């Protein structure tokens, strides 16, 4: 059976990046962070019953910026996890880090407490891009961080953002190439998407920011996929590439394949037994609830059969595993399936609908045909 995973959300960043709409606050006040660590400990404890008779096989500490935490704080979290839940011996344990302040010692410490995969927020290997994205690290610090992680034999993912407004195919190709040279086992390449209520979003509304064209974005998407495939990567999810199946991000796969996971920390999402719930996106509220022994849960819903069907469809369009034909629940889809296959959006292999590269590019819209 597929084992569940655990996600921990660290809701702090040094400064908010202008494109980011994840929940985090820019805060480095130790007392608040300490209070959060303490509250998180309580939340972990709340779920000890849920964890009974279960063996987890992934931990993912993300955010926000987990590197805001010091070693002691990380240790406390991990200790709480280990003492409350059971984990399989091959647990995939990922932590998200930014390139700045990465030292050999820090990585060794993480390795010692069980972390075996680092997701590095490199975002770009071009100084101009980093400035544009208001990132507080340099290309060099990125490369150094990669070197340290690789030398300590940790699995490495690097996050890259592309389709910046001025970016040309050539510029992006160079970044991709430089990234591949560093030999990460995994690359997540996201297009810069402009969300409302972010500084970029507001600039876009005021027309002082222009996204690159649909055409350009599509071209860069195919370029990315073609290039990385040529270099031996498997394009296994819309934005994710790995050198082989062993390095698919086991934790993220749980999201796409509807395997159970427990999310802890503000704004974290959980999924168990066809129930989804999420926590308040508010550190203060989160802490005060946990401290008074109340679950910091904001919403919880039991999925209806219909909702389950719907999820299978749209999650299926995101990965190479695709959707089983028997999961198509509306009538008369034969003709649509046939047309989409003819037009190169999908392939049908053993009654499984597998999105093509082009299909990935349209993974947002294709589900509409099947709901």
């Amino acid at each position, binding site marked *: 059976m597929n084992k569940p995973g655990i*996600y921990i*959300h660290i809701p702090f960043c040094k400064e908010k990046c202008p494109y980011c709409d*994840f929940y985090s606050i820019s805060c480095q006040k130790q007392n608040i962070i300490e209070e959060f660590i303490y509250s998180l400990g309580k939340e972990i404890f709340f779920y000890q019953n849920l964890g009974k008779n279960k063996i987890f096989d992934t931990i993912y500490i*993300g955010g926000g910026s987990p590197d805001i935490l010091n070693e002691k704080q990380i240790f406390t979290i991990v200790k709480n996890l280990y003492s409350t839940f059971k984990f399989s011996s091959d647990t995939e344990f990922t932590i998200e880090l930014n390139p700045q302040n990465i030292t050999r010692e820090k990585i060794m410490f993480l390795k010692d407490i069980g972390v075996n995969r680092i997701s590095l927020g490199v975002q770009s290997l071009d100084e101009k891009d980093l400035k544009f994205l208001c990132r507080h690290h340099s290309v060099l610090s990125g490369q150094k961080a990669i070197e340290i992680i690789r030398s300590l034999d940790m699995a490495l993912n690097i996050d890259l953002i592309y389709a910046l407004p001025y970016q040309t195919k050539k510029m992006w190709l160079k970044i991709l190439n430089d990234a591949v040279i560093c030999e990460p086992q995994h690359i997540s390449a*996201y*297009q810069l*998407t402009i969300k409302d209520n972010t500084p970029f979003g507001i600039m876009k509304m005021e027309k002082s920011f222009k996204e690159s064209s*649909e*055409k350009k*974005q*599509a071209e860069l*998407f195919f370029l990315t996929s073609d290039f990385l495939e040529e270099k031996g990567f498997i394009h296994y999810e*819309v*934005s994710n590439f790995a050198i082989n199946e062993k390095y698919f991000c086991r934790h993220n796969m*749980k*999201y*796409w394949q509807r395997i159970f*996971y427990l*999310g802890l920390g503000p*704004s*974290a*999402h*959980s*999924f168990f037994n066809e129930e*989804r719930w*999420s926590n308040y996106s508010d550190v203060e509220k989160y802490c005060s609830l946990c401290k008074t022994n109340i679950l910091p849960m904001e*919403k919880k*819903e039991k999925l209806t059969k219909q*909702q389950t069907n*719907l*999820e299978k469809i*749209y*999650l299926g369009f*995101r990965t190479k595993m695709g959707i089983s034909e028997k999961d198509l629940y509306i009538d*008369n889809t034969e*003709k*649509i399936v046939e*047309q*989409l296959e003819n*037009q190169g*959006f999908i392939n049908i292999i053993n009654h499984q609908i597998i999105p093509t590269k082009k299909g*990935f*590019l*349209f*993974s*947002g*819209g*294709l*589900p*509409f*045909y099947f*709901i």
Partner: protein
Amino acid sequence: MENIRNFSIIAHIDHGKSTLADRIIQHSGIIPEREFRNQILDNMDIERERGITIKSQTINLPYKAKDGKEYLLNLIDTPGHVDFHYEVSRALASCEGVLLVIDASQGVEAQTIANLFVAMEENLKIIPVINKIDLPTADIDKVKQQIEKELDLNPNDAILCSAKEGIGIENILEAIVNQIPPPRGNIDKPLTGLVFDARYDIFRGTVVSCRIFDGKIKPGDSIIFMSTNSKFIVEEVGIFRLNKVSVRELSVGSVGYIIAGIKDVNEVKIGDTITLFNNPVSLSLAGFRESKPVVFSSIYPVSSEDYESLKDALAKYKLNDAAFVYQKDSSVALGLGFRCGFLGLLHLEVVQERLEKEFNQSIIMTIPTVQYRFTISDGQTLTIDNPLYYPDPSKIKKCEEPYVNMTIYTPEKYFGAIMKMCIDKRGINSKFNYIRQGQMEIHFEIPLSEVIFDFHDKLKSLTQGYGSFDYEFSEYRESDVVKLDILINGDKIDALSMIIYKENAYKRARGVCEKLKETIPRQQIRIDIQAAIGSKIISRSTISPFRKDVIAKCYGGDITRKRKLLEKQKEGKKKMKVVGSAIIPQNAFIAVLKIENE
């Protein structure tokens, strides 16, 4: 029974029937003055909005005549518009006489004659009433001449009246009691009642309007409807005042309503005969002639989930509008629906509006069409009112379409514009004359298909609302028509097919292609829109596909956000139709159906 008088008020449209009814009702004193409003019997919203009567309406009134006796009058106000002529014929089946109202300034018109004929066929006593004598343009002598020459009635019998000013009302009431005979029939014979109208009430079931020809009926009686042979126990009987008033019994000669717990509307047929279960009559009454629709269109629910609800609404609606006919229909593009027949364009609009407002239905109607007549190579004649059944073009030897005699009333300054429209719409043999200073009447012959398209809107806009029109069927004439199909990515959208005059086809094809391009959103796949006659494409447009979708990250396992979005889209999809792989919003269909023939 000797003191009952059943009569209808009939006339051409706008000659003042409902206003005359108002005065007679006021005279009876049954409604307090402060509760009174003009055209009080026109109680449907759509009647009040448009200022015309659409449904016949019965009201029971007491009258103390000069002979000192108390009479009970059943007055039926009828519509004057030709589209509701059927309402008149049903009303007259319950009457012994009519007031034939003639506008003193307009004189005898088409529906004056048409309605008179129905009254004569029913052997009813006819009392001519010359109304609106208060108007400065009233020409009583001319109208009297017309009564003699055109109607073959005695002009000396005509009563002068101004319904508006309340002049001549007493005379009319006296004529009603003195000239119209009391109902005949025998109270001791088995019950014979004619169902002439019905209405569905959610609490009481079907409320049947009925004229008793023999016998009597009271609560507790077991009755049967002779055509459906279904049996019910009478719960309540009553008469129509402004509202229903229950009475102990309805006996021979009277007009009233019956409630008998009839939940299934299909048990009641307008024109059916009611009799007693234990003591039935052997022969049922003649009933009504079937109405003959001239305009046809299909009705679909906006959301296919609402099909059953629409079906139910139509059955209930039909009870209250016997002229409306419908049968099941289905379309690849729009799913299950109904093919409907109407007596004219106004009738179609009324049905549409009442279904929407009174029955809360969201519906799509396809392009109205007339009945074409095709002679095919083996000599057979086919009558086609649905593009779906258009015959094989290679076998068509001759096609004919219905023409009407059109009359337009307009201030003279719009004459030029109207003549131009008349020519654009294939009008021929035009004639015109002045009906009074500055006011013209234009006559021409025109295909009905041009009238049902956008004639009304166009005339109103050309004449700033002052023009009005009236038409009657004349004959079928040879014509050159084609079937125009609309295809999306190669799939024929049957609901958009139309039979159209060949020369109009190109313009319309272009219009439809453009409209669809405007209203169908861009999608993942390319959308080719084509308009074709047979296999020949005569117009096309293309909607280019998206190049990509927004690629959202489902970060931290937040699946819900995207799911909520899809749930919303799914909700929206109910208002869309999937044709092949193209998704077409309903409003695209609606937009096309509304295109003007520019």
